[in-house]
């Protein structure tokens, strides 16, 4: 599903973002990418969503080399990847339904189809009874679930969650992780980027540890030990 082949990313001449990254994430896999701040986690996410380009090497998603993706092709890639960030990035003046529908609207989805699909994705995340609420009327966990619902609108094969629980308490964190596992069980590849040791250790899934831009450990059923 996702391949990094000899990927290097440098900023300027001497700031290393990623160094000699080689990894292969198989379809339907749940992978946690962990590491301390500045380890290269966010750089990896930026390369995956084509926000930045690798200085060397190749980034391949679903057999598609996206290393030097043209601007005009980026929307096509992003419709196949769901992205969830730590900051919820919800529109405060729109309801839950409208926030999720917005993602479909801006990609040209027909109104009828939007009316069908939005309630379905909101049902997946357990917010089917809060369609008309505004973000400020929701808890942190619920807001993150709206973001996840929005990321599922294009039925992505790959979901990237970058610190999705960073702003949440332990109860909401558990709810979000359970939701990501459920989405993974539906067949979606999930990449969870986090520095939350407890979350990673409770998952008992593959863990890739980044340190100073390099992969220091890559284990099936791994643990995050600082």
């Amino acid at each position, binding site marked *: 599903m996702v391949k990094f082949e000899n990927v290097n990313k440098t900023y300027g001449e001497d700031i290393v973002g990623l160094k000699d990254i080689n990894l292969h994430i198989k379809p339907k896999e749940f992978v946690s990418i962990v590491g301390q701040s500045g380890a290269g986690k966010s750089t990896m996410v930026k390369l995956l969503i084509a926000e930045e380009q690798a200085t060397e090497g190749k980034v391949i998603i679903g057999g598609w080399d996206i290393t030097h993706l043209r601007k005009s092709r980026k929307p096509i890639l992003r419709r196949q990847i769901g992205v969830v960030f730590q900051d919820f990035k919800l529109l405060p003046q729109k309801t839950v339904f409208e926030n999720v529908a*917005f993602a479909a609207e801006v990609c040209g989805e027909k109104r009828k189809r939007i009316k069908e699909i939005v309630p379905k994705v909101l049902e997946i995340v357990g917010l089917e009874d809060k369609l008309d609420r505004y973000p400020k009327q929701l808890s942190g966990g619920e807001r993150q679930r709206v973001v996840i619902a929005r990321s599922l609108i294009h039925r992505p094969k790959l979901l990237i969650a970058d610190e999705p629980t960073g702003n949440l308490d332990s109860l909401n964190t558990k709810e979000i992780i359970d939701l990501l596992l459920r989405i993974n069980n539906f067949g979606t590849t999930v990449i969870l980027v986090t520095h939350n040791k407890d979350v990673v250790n409770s998952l008992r899934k593959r863990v890739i540890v980044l340190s100073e831009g390099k992969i220091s450990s890559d284990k099936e059923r791994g643990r995050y030990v600082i």
Partner: protein
Amino acid sequence: MFFRIIKFAFQNFYRNFWLAIVTVTMLVVALFSVSTLITLNVVLDQAVKSVEDKIDVSIYFKKDIEEAKILAAKVELSNLPEVEKVTLINQEEASLLFKEYHKEDEVILSSVDSLDENPFSNLLIVKAYNMEDYSGILKMLDKKEYSSLIEKKDFDDHKAVISKITLIKDRIKKIGYIIIAIFSFIAALIVFNTVRITIYTHRNEITIMRLVGATNWFIRAPFLFEEVFYALASCLILISIFYPLLSFLEPHFNYFLEYDFDLISYFKNNFFYIFGAQFLAVAFINSISSFIAMKKYLKA
């Protein structure tokens, strides 16, 4: 998709309402300066035309010349390609016209009546198509076959008046171009700033759009359409201000310049040419400005 872009453009418009007001006001001021210049141009053109309309050559024939010869001269002059019209006024008509003109003046009328014979000559009034043609016509009248018939010729080309009006027109044009250039530049800057602020206030939407795979065209198009709305709104406001102002000023222009010209009809007949062109020009300037702003602040 198109309607969604229009919807988003409208949202940009009313979510930054006060910014929109400032932008539209500035565009209206710029357009108003252009329209004022057009009006002055039209008025002065008409002033020149009205003066030119008054130009003709009056040929007074000797009293003993037979009417047949005068009629032959009229036919010959009428056949000249540069001559628009030749009017014959015989002695009786000349006398009647004179009396009509001085009907209030008893002294003059009684003086004319006291004369034994009609003091007026047969007269041909020659009107040319172009002012430049008069010199040729006058030269022709100096030829022997005419000069023997003619008592005198009257020609006033009103050169001084026309050159003064033309000078004023040229000066107004020059100043107008400078004013238009300044206003266009300011309008372009304001539009640029409007787009910049709109991009800033919509940064969350734009981030989400990019994240979920909206195309660059879909992200940028509402900004372009918003600028077209600005152009349209400013043109409509201009029209709603300009026509009442014209109907107020028209009688004053006519009184001042001593001619009867229907300025409002002129603007109505050339509506699309005048306001359509202004709309297209503003829409073009706005699009260029917003394109530059988007290139700078909306990086993919």
